[in-house]
């Protein structure tokens, strides 16, 4: 008995089917409660006014943009070391979601930046690292699409994901070389005295939970689609072999 038995494709399809509706339901609940609470039942910030409320989309999306890549890295490592097919497919399934999260973070940041900073875009370290992360997602997805043989594609993309992670971290610190930019530092650390005030903090936590749940649900759903697609391909190949 180990957790690896849940990685068997048949088992995976079995346990995800009943779990998925619950995940989607919980995600919808958290997002609904968090966003409505955040948008309509928190006070306006005394300097930023109502624009501050975009953090209920911006921060969770940015969080998931990074975590999606980390999840892809872990899934790639599992595929490369233990060769669980579901793991490779999950990494593939997570990439477009992570890319969309990166885009949401960039766009909401731009919308917020215009009234507050007076500019949509600035080559600030944090903003630039997100743009770079977006490019990494693009390359990763392009490589998946380009290779026909599924196992070769899974192998090559997992190596790319590992090497890409190193370079993503390098880029993240390389852009710091330009000096501190416009973006504020971390305001949600667990170990700091001064954080965001509780009125904003609690609904933000709910939104973050909602985004995490939504991400897990979407990854599971897309992985199921990939498994089904591969089953169909296997069946077609078998039928062709019988007819020939």
């Amino acid at each position, binding site marked *: 008995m180990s957790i690896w038995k849940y990685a068997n494709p048949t088992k995976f399809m079995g346990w995800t089917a009943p779990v998925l509706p619950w995940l989607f339901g919980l995600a919808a609940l958290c997002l609904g409660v968090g966003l409505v609470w955040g948008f309509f039942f928190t006070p306006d910030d005394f300097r930023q006014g109502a624009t501050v409320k975009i953090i209920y989309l911006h921060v969770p999306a940015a969080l998931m943009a990074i975590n999606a890549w980390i999840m892809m890295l872990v899934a790639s490592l599992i595929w490369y070391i233990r060769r669980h097919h579901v793991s490779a497919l999950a990494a593939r399934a997570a990439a477009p979601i992570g890319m969309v999260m990166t885009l949401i973070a960039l766009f909401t940041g731009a919308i917020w930046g215009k009234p507050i900073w007076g500019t949509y875009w600035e080559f600030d370290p944090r903003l630039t690292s997100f743009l770079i992360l977006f490019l990494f997602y693009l390359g990763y997805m392009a490589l998946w699409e*380009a290779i026909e043989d599924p196992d070769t594609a899974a192998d090559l993309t997992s190596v790319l994901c590992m090497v890409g992670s190193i370079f993503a971290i390098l880029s993240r610190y390389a852009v710091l070389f330009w000096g501190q930019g416009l973006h504020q530092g971390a305001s949600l650390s667990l170990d700091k005295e001064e954080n965001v005030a509780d009125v904003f903090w609690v609904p933000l936590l709910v939104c973050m939970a909602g985004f995490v749940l939504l991400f897990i649900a979407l990854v599971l759903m897309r992985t199921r689609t990939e498994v089904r697609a591969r089953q169909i391909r296997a069946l077609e190949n078998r039928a062709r072999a019988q007819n020939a």
Partner: protein
Amino acid sequence: MIALLLRDLRLAVRAGGGFGLGLAFFLIVIVLVPFGVGPQSDLLTAIAPGIFWVASLLAALLSLDRIFALDFEDGSLTLLATSPLPLEGVGLIKALAHWVTTGLPLTVAAPALGFMLVLAPEAYSYLLLSLLLGTPALSMIGTFGAALTVGLRRGGLLLSVLVLPLYIPTLIYGAEAVRRGAEGLDPSGALILLGGITAGTFAILPFATAAVLRINLR
């Protein structure tokens, strides 16, 4: 290993196009920039460090798909994989040969082209030094990218999409070193980090290149 290096160099020189083409491309990009942004010399002085680095990056990119493609097609890559020389060594040598045929000529030629972009006089030595330190990393990263896409029939465009994001740290430190040199600041921090990136890529990427080549040769 030396025999392989010499063979690659000889092929690059005798096949034509491989050796001088990257350099010619570099020259053309540098010459085109004043046409694009206008001939004001103070503007050119300000952007010259970045332009030199972006141009060398593009020139390195141009010849990447030749690193493994020909050897893959005629089967010599399979021979190399079964030879006593480890595949990691093959990756390293290929990167080195690529650097000697593109990076090194660029490094030597770049200061000679400095006047085209009205490069600040203080920046010449740092341009040479930063290119010398940084272009090997471009070749090594590119070799990894070339190994990734070697099995694909139309890998050229994909190769650029994969490799260019990996070039970002090298580009930032390299251009920053020249810019600080041009402004009379101390560029040693950027140069040290640039050297660190080169050393790091040569330490890690031969293994990744070999792993990817084994997958592609399977």
